[in-house]
Every structure is written in structure tokens, then in C-alpha cells.
């Protein structure tokens, strides 16, 4: 019979308010095996922990049950307490009598009864607990950053600054991401490229940073501290080490029908191209869909003009396999495609553009060389209508868009309006909005300037229809403040489209087993307390991949993620989760059922002589690699003989809990 101590926490009045904690402590005293049972105001406090430590020593306890808040809160706290007192930290069970009892039940008698059952179930589980020893695993002192936008760059720079190697994997031919496409940034109106490109250069010049552009992460295995990633570096057909970025090939390339992705497909680019002038790496890339040589075997002009001899039409995708201690997800976002939102007529009218397209239309490196001209006829627009919340803040039950606020649209629209009014005072700017949200440093001042100083016409209301009439776009909407319908004959309509995670995020999330919300934003380990970590150990979140945010927020989060990465890489060893699967070789059939459901490939088979009561023969048996196993337990159910069990959540432990609960 074990010696078990039970510690019931009041959590001030959080628990004690609806659960008679003393009655719980009293009831647990008569459970066989329980030799000590007590309640206390705050078990997690220093005094509470001392109470536990003293009891462990005085009563020579084999295990403790703490009836308190959720194990997700304080399981670790109490494990450490136990360990400090010389008890195996895994001989600790938590009965969740706060979140799952006192906070949801109002009737004290009922709550008390349930708390007793939960505590008894924890005791029953504890009786089947075995002391577990956590193993250690090595930490590979290198980080992988997926995504080379401002978030990825900032994280990489900070991690590299701390002295660790970082690989940035970027799917496009250059790093820079969305920020590189922006013209100016709010609320300071400084030029986006001017502040971003130095960072890009810094990253490329940092010895610790290795930029793998035009590549994607194809496979990730392993676990915190020792991930192994397979990266597919797509064939550029241009030797990165030789290309000087002279762009002569671009001029000579006869195929000029490729869409310029950097300029939101608003103009064409050659088949061989450098996405933009400040691209890093400043190396050309051949679009195999457009290249005549690659498609027909004829041409080869670029090869001829390239003095560096960098062109290589035979280049193939390259697979890079590297190990990492930590992975940062900085996959960023894209604006949604507003075409399905028929009322805005985006698909039909060239002069209905998204805000990001407008950025390019206003940028000196853009399709119009920085002069605002409307796409349809290249004329100056004189009436411009901005429509806010396009695809944002939608009813969750419709398919029309996203339920969340995209957060950055109010501010960039103010920016756009202001810039246009500043540069083209003859142009009228109207903004249809639902709410204007400006909670940021100098944000509201900025917005007020747009309205007060630049005379931007803000109309609170929704747009019902954008229809082409002649060369005008008739925007019909409602003005809620004046309670009237309005109609504006616009030359250009700009949609502040919602942003959504980059389409690559979902597959990366699956690959990393990092959880995501229903909108495909990565979920943080704790919304408030661990905002830059994924629940999956070793995976960190940087930038919009976690949720909409503007540049300064992104940078802040990127640095925060970097500090978490640095904290991890600074360790030589990690303590592994000992709650892993284990196969009892005497009962194992070697049938491979478990192996098939293991998501980590942690199970292998060996031929081994097994010995036990009445048994001595060579059998094929399963073996679990405890460093690879993550403890999901899929194998335990696939195993018909029950040979496979999960430490810390064993069949017997769970059944003991079931038994108590159903009593």
C-alpha cells in the first residue's frame, strides 16, 4: 500500500467559494493509501509548496495528489516541488477542481461531491503511477526560419546576433516578403523599402545566416532540439554563385509574357528575371513556364549574354537535409481574393483594385513608375473610393470572408488617402468604413490628420454595389450617420481586403504538428503568457502567421520569438517527456499494427530472445524510441494484446480513473 498525500487548494475563494475544500480533504482521508490530507489557501504559493514539501518528508509520501486548478496551469509547479522534496516528479497527479469544478458549478454541495470524486480519481490514477525518469536529448544549435519576410528576417537577425546559425527558407526567389511590396509605412510615412532593404542586406551578409530562397520545407521529422528538415530548393536555372545580378539577361529575354508577381501581376516581366531591384539574393531566376529554351529547347539567349556563365538550363531541384534545434514559422499572409464578393465587381473591373495593388500603383518601382494611374486606361483618377473591411469581420456562418478583423486596413487606408490627397490635391477620396480602429502609438493622430488636414471623406456605411457605368464606377452605399443612400461616380475603387495566412501555412502546420485555428493562423501555446510559442515544443511563431499585425508588431514578435529560440539553443540538453509509449516484450506479437499508426516513426522491430515465466524464444518485437515518441498513444489502441502502453497514461491508470468516476 502506497503512502499518498492529498493537498486541496482553496485558490482563495476561487475554489473554496463553491467547493467545501475542508470536506474534500476530510473525505480523502479514508481512501486506502491516503495517509495525509489537508487543504490550504494557495497551494501554489511558497507557503503552500512548503506544506507539500514538509508533508512529503514527514510522512515519507510515495506520491501526492494536488486538487487545485488545471494541470495545464500548475502541474509543472507541483512536479518541481515534489522533486525538490526528493519525490519522483511523475508521482504527482492533479485533480482539476477549479476550471472543471468550482468555476462551473454553483451549488456547493454538488461541487464538493464532484471535487471529491475528481480527487479520488486522481488518487486512483496515482496508485498506478510509476516513477518516471525523463531522458535527455541533444540540442542542435541551429534554427530554421520558414519565411523570409520582415518577421523571418528580424528573427533570423536576432538569433544570429546571439551567435547561432539560422537558415531562412523562403518560397519566393527573394526575401523581403510583403513589406518589400509596400510603398510607405504608417504612421510615419517612411519608405518601406528604405527601412527594409538594409535589413535584407544585413541578413545576407551575416555569416550565421544562410538564406535558402526559392525553396520550401518538404518534410520535418524529429522533435524539439533535434528536428530534421528536408528542404527542396527549386531549380533557378541560374547559378547563384556566379550570377552578378547585372540584369542584362532580363533585357535580352524574348519571352516577356510572364506576370510580374511582385507588382501584383499588373505588368509583365521576362522569363528570366530578378523580382525587384533590391532582391536578396540579387540573382536572376528562370520561370520555366515562360522560358522558350526550357519549353522548346530553342532560344538560349540569356546563356549567350551572361558574361558570368551563370545560366544552367539543366539545373534540377536540390534536396537539402539539415538538422535544427528550433523552427520558427514566419509564413506571413496574403490578401484574400475579393472576386467572390460580387458586389464589389473586382473580377469584372480593372479599376477596382486591392490595397496591395494600390501600393504597387503608387510605388516608384511599380507598373506605373509611381504615378497613380488607373489600370484600365492609364488616366489619372479624380474620384477614388476606398471600401473597408472587404472580407473581414464577416459573420462566421457565411462563406463571404473572414470572421476576424484584419487589423491593418484602417491604418493603411488612412495612409493611402493621405498620400493621394497630398500628391494629387485635385483628387477626391472617399472611405466607406464600418469602424475606424486606431489603437496604436500615433495611430489616431495619423487618422485625424487624414480627415482634418487632408480632407478625406470618411463615410460610415457599407457599400452595396460597385457597377461600371461608362468609364465611371458607380459606388452605391449607405451613409449611416446621415442616414441616407449615397452614390459616388468613382474613377478608382480600392478594396481594403482582408488578409489571410499564406496558403503554404496549412501544410507547414501539419508537417510541424503545430496546431492552427480554424482560419489557419497558428495557435500560440498560451494566448497571453506564451504568445510566440506553438503548443508543439520547439516551434515558434513570428509575424502574421500567428494573427494579423502591422510592421512594428511583427518586428516585436519576431524578436520575441528569437529570444525564445535563443533560450532554447543556449541549452546543451533538453529533458524529454518521459510519458512515452513502451512495449512489453513478453506480450508483443510483432504484428506491426502499432508501427502503422505511429505519426513519428518511433517504433521499430527487432528479433530478440524474450524470456519470461514459461517463455523463452526468439520473437519479433516492437521497440519504441523514447526520444522520438511524443506520447500520443495511437499505438496503444492499435495493439490488440495490450503490450503497448503509455507511461503516465497507462491503461491501468485510465481505467482506475474511470472506475472511480463511475462509482
Amino acid at each position, binding site marked *: *500500500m*502506497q*503512502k499518498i498525500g492529498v493537498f486541496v487548494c482553496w485558490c482563495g475563494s476561487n475554489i473554496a467559494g463553491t467547493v467545501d475544500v475542508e470536506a474534500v480533504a476530510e473525505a480523502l482521508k479514508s481512501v486506502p493509501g491516503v495517509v495525509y490530507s489537508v487543504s490550504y489557501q494557495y497551494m501554489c504559493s511558497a507557503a503552500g509548496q512548503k506544506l507539500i514539501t514538509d508533508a512529503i518528508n514527514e510522512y515519507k509520501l*510515495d506520491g501526492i495528489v494536488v486538487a487545485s486548478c488545471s494541470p495545464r496551469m500548475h502541474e509543472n509547479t507541483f512536479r518541481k516541488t515534489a522533486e525538490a522534496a526528493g519525490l519522483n516528479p511523475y508521482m504527482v497527479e492533479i485533480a482539476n477542481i477549479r476550471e472543471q469544478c468550482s468555476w462551473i458549478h454553483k451549488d456547493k454541495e454538488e461541487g464538493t461531491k464532484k471535487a471529491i470524486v475528481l480527487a479520488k480519481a486522481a488518487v486512483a490514477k496515482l496508485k498506478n503511477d510509476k516513477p518516471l525518469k525523463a531522458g535527455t536529448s541533444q540540442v542542435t544549435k541551429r534554427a530554421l526560419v520558414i519565411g523570409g519576410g520582415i518577421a523571418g528576417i528580424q528573427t533570423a537577425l536576432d538569433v544570429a546576433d546571439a551567435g547561432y546559425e539560422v537558415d531562412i527558407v523562403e518560397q519566393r526567389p527573394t526575401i523581403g516578403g510583403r513589406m518589400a511590396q509596400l510603398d510607405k509605412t504608417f504612421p510615419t510615412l517612411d519608405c518601406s523599402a528604405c527601412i527594409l532593404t538594409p535589413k535584407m542586406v544585413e541578413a545576407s551578409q551575416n555569416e550565421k545566416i544562410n538564406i535558402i530562397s526559392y525553396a520550401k520545407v518538404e518534410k520535418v521529422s524529429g522533435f524539439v532540439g533535434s528536428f530534421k528538415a528536408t528542404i527542396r530548393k527549386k531549380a533557378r536555372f541560374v547559378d547563384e554563385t556566379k550570377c552578378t545580378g547585372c540584369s542584362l539577361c532580363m533585357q535580352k529575354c524574348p519571352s516577356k509574357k510572364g506576370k510580374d508577381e511582385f507588382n501584383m501581376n499588373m505588368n509583365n516581366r521576362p522569363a528570366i528575371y530578378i523580382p525587384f531591384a533590391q532582391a536578396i539574393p540579387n540573382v536572376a531566376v528562370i520561370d520555366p513556364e515562360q522560358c522558350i529554351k526550357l519549353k522548346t529547347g530553342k532560344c538560349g539567349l540569356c546563356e549567350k549574354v551572361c558574361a558570368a556563365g551563370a545560366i544552367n538550363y539543366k539545373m534540377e531541384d536540390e534536396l537539402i537535409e539539415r538538422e535544427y534545434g528550433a523552427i520558427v514559422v514566419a509564413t506571413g499572409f496574403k490578401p484574400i481574393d475579393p472576386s467572390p464578393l460580387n458586389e464589389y465587381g473586382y473580377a469584372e473591373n480593372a479599376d477596382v483594385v486591392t490595397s496591395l495593388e494600390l501600393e504597387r500603383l503608387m510605388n516608384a518601382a511599380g507598373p506605373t513608375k509611381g504615378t497613380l494611374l488607373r489600370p484600365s486606361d492609364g488616366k489619372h483618377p479624380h474620384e477614388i473610393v476606398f471600401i473597408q473591411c472587404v472580407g473581414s469581420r464577416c459573420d462566421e456562418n457565411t462563406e463571404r470572408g473572414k470572421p476576424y478583423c484584419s487589423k491593418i486596413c484602417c491604418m493603411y487606408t488612412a495612409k493611402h488617402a493621405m498620400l493621394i490627397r497630398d500628391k494629387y490635391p485635385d483628387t477626391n477620396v472617399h472611405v466607406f468604413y464600418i469602424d475606424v480602429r486606431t489603437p496604436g502609438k500615433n495611430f489616431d493622430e495619423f487618422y485625424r490628420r487624414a480627415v482634418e488636414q487632408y480632407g478625406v471623406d470618411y463615410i460610415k456605411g457599407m457599400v452595396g454595389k460597385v457597377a461600371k457605368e461608362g468609364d465611371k464606377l458607380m459606388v452605391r452605399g449607405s451613409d449611416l450617420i446621415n442616414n441616407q443612400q449615397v452614390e459616388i461616380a468613382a474613377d478608382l475603387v480600392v478594396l481594403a481586403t482582408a488578409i489571410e495566412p499564406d496558403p503554404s501555412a496549412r501544410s507547414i502546420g501539419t508537417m510541424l504538428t503545430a496546431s492552427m485555428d480554424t482560419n489557419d493562423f497558428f495557435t500560440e501555446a498560451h494566448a497571453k503568457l506564451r504568445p510566440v510559442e506553438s503548443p508543439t515544443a520547439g516551434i515558434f511563431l513570428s509575424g502574421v502567421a500567428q494573427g494579423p499585425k502591422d510592421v512594428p508588431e511583427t518586428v516585436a514578435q519576431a524578436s520575441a520569438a528569437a529570444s525564445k529560440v535563443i533560450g532554447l539553443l543556449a541549452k546543451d540538453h533538453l529533458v524529454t517527456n518521459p510519458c512515452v509509449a513502451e512495449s512489453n516484450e513478453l506480450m508483443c506479437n510483432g504484428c506491426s499494427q502499432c508501427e502503422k499508426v505511429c505519426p513519428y516513426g518511433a517504433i521499430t522491430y527487432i528479433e530478440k530472445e524474450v524470456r519470461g515465466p514459461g517463455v523463452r524464444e526468439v520473437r519479433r518485437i516492437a521497440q519504441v524510441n523514447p526520444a522520438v515518441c511524443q506520447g500520443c498513444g495511437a499505438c496503444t489502441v492499435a495493439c490488440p494484446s495490450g503490450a503497448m502502453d503509455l507511461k503516465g497514461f497507462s491503461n491501468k491508470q485510465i481505467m482506475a480513473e474511470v472506475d472511480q468516476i463511475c462509482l
Partner: protein
Amino acid sequence: MTKETLVPVLGIVTDVRVDTPDVKTFRVNALGGGKCFEHMPGQCAMLSIPGVGEAMFSITSSPTNTEFMEFSIKKCGCLTEWLHQMDVGQMITIRGPYGNAFPVEGDLKGQDLLFIAGGIGLAPLRSVINYVRAKRENYGKVRIVYGSRSKDDLVDYPEIVNEWCREAGIEVFLTIDREQEGWDGHVGFVPNYVTELGFNPDGRVLVCGPPIMIKFTTQALMNLGFDKTQIYTTMELRMKCGVGKCGRCNIGDKYVCKDGPVFRYDELGELPAEY
């Protein structure tokens, strides 16, 4: 004719002694004090913790002990693990006594006795040894050969050293399997030690220990000139229900629960080799 109900009586653990890393000796009393029942050396009792299981253990205390019974129990399974966690004051259930006993009042009487035990095999023999010590006048010379894996695995070491070794007419020979620091006694396996000691083939021999040890020890004894009829051993490992009805202890036409567990070596030879 006795009536068997399979219903145990309740006992209470009044003392727990740690003998070796995996052997503890438990003192058991009836709830009102005294012994739960009387027994003879070599007989067994069924101990149980409801819900955990029932198992047969030889009673290690001598019947001449009028105050309590003792059980030396090696940790080797679910029930024994549970028993090892017991504290003083824990109630257990007990039924018995079961099986026959060493013929202390019959064939052994008046004889020189040689006890040979290995490991936890001392448990049943300790009952006989202490019985003989209590009725010293009825028996001849007593020699005890006891071996174990290591010094720490010798069960009842204090009693052996402080009582048996000091008693006139008792010779104790201890041995351990491998050299060990702090041990200046004999090193080697029991059967070899028996050969080395070269006992005269007279009197009676009581052997108990792991099956392999019993096998080689009897061989050694026969080489020394002992006859099968002089050798006794016990097979309580094969007992299950204790009353010879559940069907498990059946070896040939014998039932270990009823005809054993103590067998003379020549009786075993007449049975199919299925034990």
C-alpha cells in the same frame, strides 16, 4: 473430516522486517492477538489482499512460537509487490494451514539433520530449524548450509549469525555466489559447497531453493552417498487453491496441496517429470 470454505480469517501485520532488497518478513497476528491458527513446519498458508490476489506462502516461523506467525516474502509479482508496500497495522486475509509438513515428529526424529537452502528457500526450512532448536533433545546434530547471490541476499542474516551460529550443536555454513567486499566467508554455489564440505551420508537432508539448485544439490548428495529416501524437499510453488481441488497441483496421481508440498525425493521419482 474438516470443512473447507475457502473463507479466510483476518490477520493483522504487526511487524515488518526488511531482510534483503527484495525480501521482507512479515509478522502476522490474529485480530485479537495470538496466532491465526496452529501449523507444523513445512506447511503453508494462503495470504491475500482482496482485489489484488491470493497466493500461497510457507510459514517461516516455527510452530513453537506461540505468539505470532511469520512469512518471508520475496517480491516477484503483483500481490507480493503490494505486500511489500504494507505497513504495520495493515489487515490481510489468511487461510490454512495447507499441505503436509516435514516429518519432524516422525522420520526426522532422532536423526542428524542437514539443512540445505538457497535464497528465499530458507523460508520453509527456517520453520523446521527453529522447531528443532526448540526441541533440541529430540534430534541429533544440526548442520545448515545456506547460500545466496550475495551477502545482502541472505535472508534472516541477524538470526543466523546471532542465534544459530552461537548455539551448541548447530553448525552453519554460509556461502555466496560471487566475491564481495566485506565478506570473508565461503564463495561458491551451494551444490559445490556441499561437495566440498563432504558430509557423511547419514541422517536426513532437507533441501529447499530454486529448482536448479535442488537438482544439483541432490546430485551432489547422492555422489556423497546419500540415498533418495534420506532427502526431503518442498514444492509449495505448485500450490494454488490449497485444498487439492482446483486442478493445478496435480502431478501424476499426486496433489501437491494434499500429498505435498513436502516430498521425499524417492516419491518424486515415481511421478511424471512434470514439476
